């Protein structure tokens, strides 16, 4: 094996390695997601965060404006306190509302911000006061089951037993529809 040929092939080999790794980093992974530039922190408190996780996206009108950096329990109010890192290029009004929404049926949950009408902008460390909690599936389904049932055997005590049992009339149909194709892509 001539020395020059070996060197050529090893060079090609290393080049393939670099190209593969670059491809994996750029096209496959979320390279842009990790570099955010400057951010400022905003807080919001929710009654229930559902399945929200740290690093979940924060979107306004469907556009990514930041990420959740911390989730903790506020021991005074016993509500969930979420810290969001918003990009400095985005300004929100003080009465912006924050809701926890779900992207698609098996999708992950994220925070959606809806701009309010207040002229005053928000500063770092501000806490959004208008929040809507996550929809935990068991609660509304359980409520629907007990309200739709109505036979003597189904009293309020049985409502917790089988929340996934769909009654014959299926009032959940409309409900599921709005969950899946609700406010968000």
């Amino acid at each position, binding site marked *: 094996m001539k020395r020059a040929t070996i060197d050529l092939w090893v060079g090609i*080999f290393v080049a393939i390695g670099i190209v593969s790794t670059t491809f994996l980093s750029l096209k496959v992974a979320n390279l842009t997601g990790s570099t955010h530039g400057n951010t400022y922190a905003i807080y919001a408190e929710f009654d229930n965060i559902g399945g929200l996780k740290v690093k979940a996206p924060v979107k306004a009108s469907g556009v990514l404006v930041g990420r959740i950096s911390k989730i903790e329990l506020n021991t005074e109010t016993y509500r969930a306190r979420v810290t969001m890192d918003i990009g400095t290029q985005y300004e929100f009004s003080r009465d912006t509302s924050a809701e926890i929404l779900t992207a698609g049926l098996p999708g992950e949950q994220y925070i959606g911000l809806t701009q309010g009408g207040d002229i005053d902008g928000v500063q770092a460390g501000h806490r959004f006061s208008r929040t809507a909690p996550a929809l935990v599936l068991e609660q509304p389904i359980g409520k629907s089951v007990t309200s739709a049932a109505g036979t003597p055997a189904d009293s309020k005590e049985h409502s917790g037993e089988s929340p996934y049992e769909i009654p014959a009339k299926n009032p959940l149909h409309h409900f599921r529809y709005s969950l899946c194709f609700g406010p968000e892509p």
Partner: protein
Amino acid sequence: MLETLATNLRHLGNWTINVIWKMGFATRFLWSIVLHSAPLITRPGLVIREIYFAGVLSLIIIMVSGLFVGMVLGLQGYTTLVRFGSAEALGSLVALSLLRELGPVLAALLFASRSGSAMTAEIGLMKATEQLDAMAVMAVDPIARVIAPRFWAGIFSLPILTALFNVMGIFGGYYIGVIMIGLDEGAYWSQMQNAVDLHEDVFNGMIKSVFFGVAVTLIAVFEGYDAEPTAAGVSSATTRTVVTSALVILAMDFVLTAFMF
């Protein structure tokens, strides 16, 4: 009856002691390889030559296997996901499975079978034909000249092969999912980009492959150096390389996954 039990227990004890002794010896061997590697800085040609034999010659098997694994993932993944109406998540499924687990593990197993066993056979044969002794008698350190270049070549090659395996696998999944089955191309790549994190998935997978590279190459080189200098000895050393590498890779994979994910 009791005697056979006692004999078998004694064999088991012996075997365990042998395994532990081997591990200790292998660690000292690793240390001595690293110590003797200094001359390679002035003679990179030796390492480059071994990278050719260990890495470049494994390209075909890695690429073809990666492609097939990706295609199978695409097929099986689609059949399962479509039941939950989540067929667009196929991209994420293929990419994450490959980057985190299948890529590093399978590439390491293939590397052990092809290049690892070749290294063991080569070194074992050199030992059996007294070439290593001849080198020593000519005032050339066989560890620096024969063992160390192969060791570093293996560590260098395996991450590259793993990256290539992953790329081929993702394209295999793409071929099945988008071209053959007809999923949306944009959904395949964008869902993947959303699900795959550079640090968590890509880097961790690469780190795994480096660990595997060290383990597989060390085992290969050690078994060759330690082989009995006969034909039967070399052949059983080669088998041991493949089997031990496989077990160590899978065990390490578990430990590393527990650490990282």
